């Protein structure tokens, strides 16, 4: 199965710019489906970004983060070819991780 995580990480000299898109419903728990039943809450709580074994960003999300969430940030360092590990955990304990290469 294809990964739920897509990452674009670009090293430009001193810093690395990271953009990530995650496929996730981010259900708040207050939305009803077409049969009138509540769709249970199902949203990502944390996303960790690690470069060279070091945390470069910790995102904490509530249900107000949009479906198929997007995040953009930058950190000092990082070189072309370096691995960037992205891991999310949601409120149901589901998780996914991806090791992306910095371009």
């Amino acid at each position, binding site marked *: 199965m294809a990964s739920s995580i897509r990452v674009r990480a670009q090293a430009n000299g001193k810093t690395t710019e990271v953009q990530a898109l995650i496929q996730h419903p981010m259900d708040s728990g207050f939305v009803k489906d077409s049969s009138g039943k509540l769709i249970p809450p199902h949203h990502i709580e944390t996303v960790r970004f690690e470069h060279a074994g070091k945390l470069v960003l910790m995102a904490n*999300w509530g249900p107000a983060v949009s479906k198929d969430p997007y995040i953009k940030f930058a950190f000092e360092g990082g070189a072309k070819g370096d691995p960037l590990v992205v891991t999310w955990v949601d409120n149901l304990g589901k998780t996914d991780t991806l090791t992306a290469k910095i371009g």
Partner: protein
Amino acid sequence: MHPRADHHPPAIHTRRAATRLLALLGVAGFVGTARAAAPGWPEEAFKQTSEADAIKALYGKSAATSDKITLEVPEIAENGAVVPVSVSSSLADVTAISILVPGNPLTLAASYTLPAGTLPSIGCRLKMAKTSNVIALVEAGGKLYSTSKEVKVTLGGCGG
């Protein structure tokens, strides 16, 4: 595509879509939280329904208004389900950036921890239930700063 998409009839009536968006953030309280939150996730802060309580739960201190924070949001959201928000700051030693939407029943939308070396600039996309201020909180040098801007959220007609 996500399998859930199949549960929705493709022809979506405007009113239903609008109702859904309102319902999205309409009532506080989760249906059930049997399992523990993800490690490090500030559960208490995400439960709060007021700006002051959310800030207190997150940082335990109050914020001073600062002009050294740049908050970029649209004046009118094209759709309350996807509002692009970006926060950056020229303050030194920024360790955290959080975004609050007091117009949503659960005030805290997102909170980012920035280790040393991470630039004080974050972009993301948030849901907004109605017209509201968006508050950017920046923790820098152990102190808390904030700025805010209003985003108008209108109900869609057709989607263009």
